[in-house]
């Protein structure tokens, strides 16, 4: 026997199974390209080492991890699909006298061939594409484009090791699979799963409960702070729910439809319902994967796109004025000095301030329960029901809003930035205040901290403020100083603004060490790097997941095709026209393949609330922009989905008609 016997069989096998193996090899190559590029970006010297770059690098390293983990799951899952389909072939080899160790040898050569092709092609294509990737990334985060070409050896080695590892594990799994089963079983394997599945009420119930719980968490999340934990819990619940619903809920529904005789005994329904019922067992997992991946793609793209598109909004939210000065524990004489220093600096740099807003305030954190607020010292951890209260004097209010409102003791004007108080009374650690009027806007449209918790602004007279101050000092009557805010816009170039911010920081610290000067321009770059980095990652992972969806759909179609072929032959003999068959196939395939998309969109609708809260935590509050971005993402994704469906459906028809 020549040395080339096994390699030859291996090549032959791959060619024979080209319908499934070529897409698999392509998917391997794409995955490797993606991984290499993420690895390349997170190691690229061009990104530099400044503080912004470091946070970008963190995002990219995170991305590398996600792509790596995804690759492992994705390639393993698809390998399992392939080997399952081929068990029959191996059974035949076995019966024809090929020993299992010979089969293992054939498998070894097959895997080696696929591995070498994929890794070499993947890394080469990855290297070629890497320059484009870094250009796109730099464009997005507004970094200056650098010239030159970089091939980090570390990334090449990482990629080669990770993917050889994946292929070797897959090979071991495959050999194990063949080793464990006997030839008769191997021959039967592909036909397994024809029995009508039992109605698994428990799984259906678990699915319904998980989905309901996930949706409930999403819908009832009121505070941005609760969104983080809640989001991940909800995601896990919804994933479990989706699997259960596809596995069992689908069967419950189909059986119900079958019970309705009038509906069931219509030609289209008759054939589709019965075949879907029998097929769900094998396909449920694939369909759930498609559904979950689709949801992830849409969530990732819509959030990162809207954040990036709304970056200027976010900046304005976070920094309501170009330059904002916050000073705590400040005396009236210091306030005068501060005002003067700001005037002086702006005139030196020839940057006249406008839209000036300055006022006194008292800021403290409470725990909110309805209209009851309990004052609480908080260091790092913000509990989800934390609320910020800001007291503003009636004098400042009248001055800035140009009104002549008057308040008596115990009366306040309320402006809620986020959150809600019902009724006309609020209770701060026992102190009751009557809400005289609610304001629809306040001159202070920004946030004192990033807007994580609910924020309420209370306009009150001095007597009332003193009482709150007493409370804050636990009755020690040691009246605390006000804090002071001074914010303004300037008509000046970016570098002047940054210069001004730095100069003010320098000058004002001398007056009061507890001063904080924030310049929107100085922070802008950081925002672009953060949001741009996330945007890039979103698109990148979105593409990767779309590829996974495509392959999952393709394999599902093939599976369906082989299953249906025999059945349609029989129906043809019994008197069904080819045209009718085609129509039924179309109906059925449409239902099966658009179901995941429909459910993904439903998930999304329920997730909407928690996503807006999640975004609010990142200072993104432009809900309309988010809605638009989500709708556009869904539309674009649906179009891609439909195109992929049309292309893969072709393969299905080919198989059925063969």
């Amino acid at each position, binding site marked *: 026997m020549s040395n080339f016997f096994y390699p030859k069989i291996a090549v032959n096998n791959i060619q024979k199974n080209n319908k499934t193996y070529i897409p698999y090899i392509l998917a391997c190559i794409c995955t490797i390209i993606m991984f290499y590029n993420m690895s390349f970006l997170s190691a690229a010297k061009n990104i530099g080492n400044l503080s912004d770059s470091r946070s970008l690098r963190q995002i990219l390293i995170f991305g590398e991890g996600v792509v790596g983990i995804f690759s492992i799951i994705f390639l393993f899952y698809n390998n399992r699909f392939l080997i399952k389909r081929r068990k029959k072939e191996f059974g035949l080899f076995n019966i024809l006298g090929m020993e299992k160790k010979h089969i293992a040898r054939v498998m070894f050569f097959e895997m080696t061939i696929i591995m070498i092709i994929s890794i070499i092609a993947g890394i080469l294509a990855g290297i070629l594409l890497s320059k484009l990737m870094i250009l796109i990334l730099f464009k997005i985060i507004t970094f200056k484009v650098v010239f030159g070409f970089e091939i980090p050896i570390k990334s090449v080695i990482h990629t080669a090791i990770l993917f050889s590892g994946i292929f070797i594990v897959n090979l071991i799994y495959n050999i194990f699979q063949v080793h464990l089963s006997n030839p008769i079983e191997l021959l039967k394997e592909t036909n397994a799963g024809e029995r009508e599945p039992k109605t698994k009420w428990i799984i259906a119930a678990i699915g319904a409960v998980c989905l309901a719980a996930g949706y409930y968490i999403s819908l009832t999340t009121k505070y941005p702070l609760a969104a983080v934990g809640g989001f991940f819990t909800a995601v896990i619940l919804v994933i479990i729910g989706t699997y259960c619903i596809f596995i069992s809920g689908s069967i419950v529904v189909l059986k119900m439809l079958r019970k309705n005789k009038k509906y069931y005994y219509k030609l289209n329904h*008759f054939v589709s319902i019965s075949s879907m019922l*029998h097929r769900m067992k094998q396909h449920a997992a694939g369909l759930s994967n498609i559904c979950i991946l689709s949801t992830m793609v849409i969530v990732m793209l819509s959030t990162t796109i809207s954040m990036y598109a709304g970056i200027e909004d976010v900046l304005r939210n976070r920094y309501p004025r170009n330059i904002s000065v916050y000073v705590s524990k400040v005396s009236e004489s210091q306030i005068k000095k501060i005002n003067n220093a700001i005037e002086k600096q702006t005139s030196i740099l020839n940057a006249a301030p406008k839209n000036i807003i300055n006022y006194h305030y008292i800021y403290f954190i409470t725990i909110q329960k309805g209209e009851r607020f309990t004052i609480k010292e908080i260091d790092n951890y913000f509990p989800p029901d934390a609320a910020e209260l800001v007291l503003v004097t009636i004098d400042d209010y009248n001055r800035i809003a140009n009104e002549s409102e008057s308040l008596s003791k115990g009366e306040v004007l309320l402006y809620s930035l986020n959150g809600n108080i019902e009724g006309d009374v609020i209770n701060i650690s026992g102190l009751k205040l009557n809400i005289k009027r609610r304001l629809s806007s306040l001159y202070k449209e920004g946030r004192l901290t990033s807007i994580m918790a609910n924020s309420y602004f209370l306009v009150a007279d001095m007597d009332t403020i003193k009482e709150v101050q007493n409370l804050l000092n636990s009755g020690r009557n040691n009246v605390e100083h006000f804090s002071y805010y001074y914010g303004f816009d300037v008509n000046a170039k970016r570098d002047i603004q940054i210069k001004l911010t730095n100069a003010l920081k320098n000058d004002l610290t001398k007056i009061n060490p507890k001063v904080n000067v924030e310049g929107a321009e100085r922070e802008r770059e950081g925002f672009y790097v953060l949001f741009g980095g996330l945007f890039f990652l979103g698109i990148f992972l979105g593409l990767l997941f779309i590829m996974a969806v495509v392959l999952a759909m393709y394999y599902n179609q093939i599976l369906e095709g082989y299953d249906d072929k025999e059945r349609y032959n029989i*129906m043809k*003999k*019994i008197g069904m026209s080819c045209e009718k068959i085609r129509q039924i196939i179309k109906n059925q395939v449409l239902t099966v393949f658009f179901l995941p998309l429909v459910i993904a969109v439903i998930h999304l609708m329920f997730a909407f609330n928690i996503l807006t809260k999640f975004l609010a935590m990142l200072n993104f509050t432009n809900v309309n922009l988010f809605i638009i971005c989500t709708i556009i993402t869904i539309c674009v994704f649906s179009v891609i989905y439909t195109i992929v469906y049309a292309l893969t459906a072709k393969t299905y028809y080919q198989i059925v008609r063969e």
Partner: protein
Amino acid sequence: MSILEVKNLKKVYTTRFEGNTVQALSNVSFSIEKGEYVAIMGESGSGKTTLLNIIAALDKPTSGDVLLNDKSIISIKEKDISAFRRDNLGFVFQDFNLLDTFSVQDNIFLPLVLAGKTYDEMDERLKVIAKKLGISDILIKYPYEISGGQKQRTAIARALITKPQLILADEPTGALDSRSSEGLLKLFEEINNEGQTILMVTHSIKAASKAKRVMFIKDGEIFHQIYKASMTDEKMYQKISDTLTMIVTGGERNE
């Protein structure tokens, strides 16, 4: 009145490789009267399935014609063929051709659903047929849960439920044990006695001996035929087996 007329059928298969041709039927002519029960016998590869497929409009002949009730089925347009097949013909196949995803009842309903009948009408027809075929108890079962004989009964019920002009059966006992075969043949006799025309292809002498007429096909031609008339099954059996011996030993045609 003849229900089926087959005229000078010829079928040549061209194999895909090297342009080899196989002549499956060279010149077949016969006719079947309404209410007849005809068996066609022949060795494996003699063209029986080919003949049946052409009569069923599943395949086109190279030349010749097939008339069902004086209407040529060769000339039926492609888009009407399925409806024609469903309305006029009932099939019983050797390997049953039941759909695993349907219960026995739904398998039987399939042709009626195709024809767009209402559930009530289907149910009414089913009750009568299921009782006659003795499958009333297994209607809710699935094909993989029942025996070969039961599967074949199901297939017959499916063929009968459309009240076809002609039942075509291709080796219906081929995959059955002798007891089930016996039952099936009895069933065919019964439904034939009720007026159902049957054309059955078989290579079992026992099966053929129940038919009212047996035709022998050899080298793509009808070689010989025997009418049962008033003969007993045993006599018929003997006669068929004599004829087969004669065919194999290459004797002259008689009659």
